[in-house]
């Protein structure tokens, strides 16, 4: 014991000796050191949050494939993978500059293309900031995939995903968020509140999804000849639920990370995000239970997402109680919106337009109504202006884009291809080739009859590879 204490003291002496050799700390050098630690913390928090938001891509992929049929699972995976991959490149080349470059007019930025603001050896903040922003751009892009699922030509979707990341998302983003870096947009100058992007990200994706779904038309079989709705069941509700859990987790990066600074504000943002999601799930479940007699799982999962989308705009500027009210209202709205779009023959297999478009608009409005610093008609007016501006920019441009794709290379697969499934026709494969065999093996045919078991010697013999002659 004594030895340990003595050697500990010796080490301590060595350390203090080393310190003594440094320059004597001054108030200024202390401040610089503290600022440096804060800067490092900002980098770590921003990049950690970016990683959480990136994981939301997996959430979207699972939600979308869960709510659609097994014959289109590869197609959904490819769309979610490629809209992030192609979107990243487009946002690097053009999108980031349009959104965050110096903006003389307030309508779009004109500098910083190809990440030219970063010089080797220079300040790397632009890299951390870009990384956080590119995952947001990809979120807006991937929302559309679910609404257009099961009938869109893959090449048409790829072109769309480049254009939204390159032009549609960044231009609106520059109006509301340009000032976060070098830009400055007309909407933010008016005092528009959209902290983490109910409108900038989610409504942009939602309204683009609406345009795409209208141009495409409903899936074959969704409506009967006499106009009745015939539900097309998703192939894996557990995957859809896993996707919602992943998205909920990712949102803890999406909203609190939007501080892009490690500070105390993130605590309330975190709590608001969680409470709104919880209230959204509860109210969507209750609405479904009252309307259909059962607590419908699809609607309840959408309800959690609706609460998350809604709180994205006001998460930093409302109290936790307000967050619950905002999420709860979103939970009711989303169920009614899904039923409404189904009725007017807009076929959105995953409810993306209702969750992201409609609840994004509601969340942005709620940021004005429940503003922690008080509200006024002017604040609410600016919020409404931002909501309208988003629709008026995104819906027509996306509609035009999808129409252009439709008349040139075609946006929708042929009816034969749609019935066959996009996995086979577009990607030349099947997502679950062994599904039937393993399914039979797991059915409970005990006693050595299962195809996956080899209990007797003769069966083991039979399972040996056949020699090729």
């Amino acid at each position, binding site marked *: 014991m004594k030895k340990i204490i003595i050697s500990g003291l010796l080490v301590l002496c060595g350390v203090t000796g080393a310190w003594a050799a440094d320059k004597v700390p001054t108030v200024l050098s202390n401040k610089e050191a503290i600022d440096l630690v804060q800067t490092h913390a900002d980098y770590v928090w921003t990049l950690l949050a970016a990683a959480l938001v990136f994981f939301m891509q997996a959430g979207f992929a699972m939600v979308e494939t869960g709510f659609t049929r097994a014959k289109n699972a590869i197609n959904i995976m490819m769309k979610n993978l490629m809209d992030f991959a192609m979107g990243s490149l487009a946002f690097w080349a053009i999108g980031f500059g349009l959104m965050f470059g110096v903006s003389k007019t307030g309508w779009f930025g004109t500098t910083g293309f190809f990440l030219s603001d970063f010089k080797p050896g220079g300040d790397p903040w632009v890299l951390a900031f870009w990384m956080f922003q590119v995952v947001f751009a990809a979120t807006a892009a991937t929302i559309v995939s679910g609404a257009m699922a099961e009938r869109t030509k893959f090449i048409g979707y790829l072109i769309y995903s480049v254009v939204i990341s390159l032009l549609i998302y960044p231009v609106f983003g520059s109006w509301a968020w340009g000032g976060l870096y070098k830009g400055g947009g007309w909407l933010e100058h008016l005092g528009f509140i959209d902290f983490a992007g109910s409108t900038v990200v989610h409504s942009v994706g939602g309204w683009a999804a609406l345009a795409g779904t209208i141009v495409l038309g409903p899936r074959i079989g969704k409506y009967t000849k006499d106009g009745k*709705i*015939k*539900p097309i*069941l*998703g192939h894996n509700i557990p995957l859809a639920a896993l996707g919602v859990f992943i998205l909920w987790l990712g949102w803890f990066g999406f909203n609190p990370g939007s501080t892009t600074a490690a500070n105390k504000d993130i605590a309330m943002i975190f709590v608001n995000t969680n409470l709104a999601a919880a209230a959204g799930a509860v109210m969507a479940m209750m609405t*479904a239970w009252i*309307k*259909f*007699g*059962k607590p*419908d799982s*699809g*609607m309840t999962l959408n309800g959690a997402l609706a609460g998350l989308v809604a709180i994205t705009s006001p998460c930093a500027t409302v109290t936790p109680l307000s967050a619950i009210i905002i999420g709860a209202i979103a939970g009711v709205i989303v*169920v009614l919106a*899904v*039923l409404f779009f*189904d009725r007017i023959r807009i076929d959105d297999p995953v*409810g993306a337009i209702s969750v992201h478009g409609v609840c994004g608009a509601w969340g942005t409005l709620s940021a004005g109504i429940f503003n922690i610093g008080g509200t006024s008609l002017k604040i609410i007016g600016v919020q409404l202006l931002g909501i309208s501006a988003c629709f008026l920019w995104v819906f027509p441009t996306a509609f035009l884009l999808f129409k252009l794709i439709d008349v040139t290379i075609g946006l929708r697969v042929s009816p034969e291809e749609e019935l066959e499934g996009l996995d086979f026709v577009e990607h030349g494969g099947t997502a679950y080739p062994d599904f039937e065999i393993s*399914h*039979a093996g797991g*059915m*409970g*045919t*005990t*006693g050595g*009859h299962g195809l996956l078991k080899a209990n007797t010697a*003769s069966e083991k013999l039979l399972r040996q590879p056949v020699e090729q002659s």
Partner: protein
Amino acid sequence: MNKIEAIIKPFKLDDVKDALNKIGINGMTVNEVKGFGRQRGHKEIYRGAEYQVDFIPKIKIDVVVDSSLVDQVVEAISKSANTGKIGDGKIFVLPVSEAVRIRTGERGEDAI
């Protein structure tokens, strides 16, 4: 020889298999099937839209036995698969003209 085809409720499969094993029946083939009889289908809800499920999942068991065992097999299945509720299923008995054990080439009753 006769083939006995029994369509039963899926959760009754283990009971039926045990009952058949008990009377010395050691081979059978099982299929997952769907269908309806007097039970009809039922209504389900998906994302707010109601739809009719006509075909309800069932299990079909095929057993081929010597004709002298038919009554015993039918009784074992009907006892073990019975719940007394609608949808318990049906049993069909069919004649079988030939059976072959592929590995050895044995034929007729030796092959079952």
